[in-house]
């Protein structure tokens, strides 16, 4: 809650809450928590974590989320994307993709919230990016696992490739460590947004300073 307030006040453009252990633990995100956060936020709020059905999604939206992000359950049942888009509109449906590079191939991974259950879903990232758009995804968050948590920069090469396949908003995730990394990913990979967690949580980078830097670099940002 404290983080939600802080990011709101610092000028974050959207808040995404990932309950990453929800899917591997077979549960979905805490509704009461969703409503508490939604009640203090005045920016878009996206919620992810174990949303497996229309009923789950409806509840999370009724408790104040603006969008739902689905990752593992969509891999399990791709038809869920169509159903969610039909029921709530594509603008509500964000698809999170955890992509891992090994031997020059990008593969989609599942249940990444639990190291013991994380596994290759058997899908190529490029195929899945195309498929989710056809099924009604309104936005794609590509989490580049090889970069995730190391704060050495976004995976520009992979994001650039996916950008060519992705006609809906594409959000970069994984690897942010400095303001320069944000400028790079906007400029070189032409993503619509950049997501970061630890760099903000640990106060390595402040959002106002980041936005001032991006503005000075000629990148249009809300300040």
């Amino acid at each position, binding site marked *: 809650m404290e983080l939600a307030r802080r990011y709101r006040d610092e000028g974050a453009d959207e808040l995404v809450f990932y309950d990453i252990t929800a899917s591997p633990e077979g549960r979905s995100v805490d509704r009461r928590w969703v409503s508490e956060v939604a*009640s203090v936020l*005045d920016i*878009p*709020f996206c919620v992810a974590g174990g949303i497996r059905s229309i009923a789950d999604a409806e509840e999370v*939206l009724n408790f*104040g989320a*603006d969008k739902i992000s689905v990752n593992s359950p969509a891999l399990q049942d791709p038809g869920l994307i169509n159903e969610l888009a039909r029921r709530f*509109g594509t603008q509500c449906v964000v698809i999170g993709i955890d992509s891992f590079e090994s031997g020059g191939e990008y593969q989609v991974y599942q249940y990444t919230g639990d190291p013991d259950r994380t596994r290759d879903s058997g899908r190529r990232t490029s195929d899945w990016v195309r498929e989710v758009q056809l099924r009604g995804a309104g936005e794609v968050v590509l989490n580049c696992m090889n970069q995730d948590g190391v704060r050495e920069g976004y995976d520009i090469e992979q994001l650039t490739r996916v950008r060519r396949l992705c*006609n809906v908003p594409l959000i970069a995730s994984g690897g942010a460590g400095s303001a320069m990394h944000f400028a790079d990913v906007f400029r070189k990979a032409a993503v619509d947004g950049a997501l970061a967690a630890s760099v903000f949580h640990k106060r390595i980078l402040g959002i106002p300073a980041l936005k001032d830097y991006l503005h000075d670099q000629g990148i249009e940002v809300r300040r």
Partner: protein
Amino acid sequence: MSAGSPATRVVIIDSGGANIASLRYALARLGHQSRLSSDPDEISGATHVILPGVGAAAAAMEQLRSRGLDQLIPRLTRPLLGICLGMQLLFEHSAEDDARCLGILPGGAGRLPGGSGLPVPHMGWNQLELCASSPLFNGVSSGDWCYFVHSYAVPVAPATLATSTYGIRFSAVAGQANFFGTQFHPERSGVTGARILANFLALD
């Protein structure tokens, strides 16, 4: 009048299916409780009426017609704010399902053209360009950012008070007499959105 004035009775019109939790939270942050209702008497008795809307124009109009609200709303004399689809419904028609709307404001909504690098629905933060003075704009300036989620938009029309641009220039805020609308979601548009909501709630 203070923001926490107990004198307001804010009613949000229930047009079915719209997700209004974030709107109610935003009103609560400004010190106003609100009720969700499709009851004509309750709507008529409100000091401020909000017409939200997510979904499709024809379905929302059908919901309003089923309660006779398509007749009631144009006759309201208290301030009314349509949000997103709710703003489009104030106009004469929408290209979405070729729907006939409330006809309070002249003009209608068309589909956003989109194009390369401009996916539809348009989702994101865009800047306002104020083009008329309005009590809704106290403390609001051209260049302020608001959050949009929409596939249809009303081109610049006589009632346009502010525009925004996404491929085309469209009405971001419209208003005439006691009827106002915002294409963006003020409840999710940070400080600017909160100011516009507060300005609306301060209208007498």
